[in-house]
């Protein structure tokens, strides 16, 4: 449970800090303007990082599942269906 709280704390920080950063970066002072190059490319790189992380995790999980739950894996156990022949 603690690890879940920690995880969501990390995610919350990841969301809150950039959001606060942008609010200040918007430039409330006259003559101070948002640099759209910085904002847009930052977003692009952050979203690419997220996309690659998600892609790695999802494909990694699938590859691991195929590897771990293959019939020939040393730790493979037959499911009750296979073992008992009852469906």
């Amino acid at each position: 449970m603690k690890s879940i709280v920690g995880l969501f704390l990390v995610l919350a920080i990841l969301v809150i800090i950039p959001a606060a950063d942008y609010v200040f970066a918007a430039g409330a002072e006259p003559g101070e303007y948002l640099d759209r190059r910085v904002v847009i490319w930052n977003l692009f790189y952050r979203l690419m990082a997220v996309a690659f992380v998600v892609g790695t995790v999802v494909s990694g999980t699938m590859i691991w599942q195929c590897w771990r739950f293959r019939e020939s894996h040393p730790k493979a156990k037959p499911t009750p269906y296979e073992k008992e022949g009852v469906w």
Partner: protein
Amino acid sequence: MKKKEYGRKMGGHSNWPEWIYVGIVIALMLWVGAEAWNVERLVEHVPEGAEVIKVTGQQWFWTFEHEDGTKEIGELHVEKGKAYKFEITAKDVNHSFNIHDYVVLMDAIPGRVNTVWFAPTDVGEHDIQCREYCGLIHYNMRGTLYVEEPSS
């Protein structure tokens, strides 16, 4: 089917890691959506006092009209540190107004005025180009943005 029996049928494993996995993916998606929404909100907020420049695209050149009525064709002179709001339209077919170096990109559509703003930060010359295929000489529908020191 009772929970225990279901668990046994499922091979006796718990599925809470799957829910955490699903939760993390959903959280990341929400984060991505929120970030993109926020950036769009900030980028679309035109600052007060931005000078309006009317941009007209036509086969195959760009025309610019400043607030004081000055017109330019194929080149645009602006001042560093000032905000500019482009009001973009087209005379014939669809075009797309693009200043790549400043990440300015907006469609120019006949009968419609689209807006986008930017504030140049450095003195220099930058390419302006059309980013919507608009006919034979689309490839050469270019212009130059000149960012100059403020006059006052």
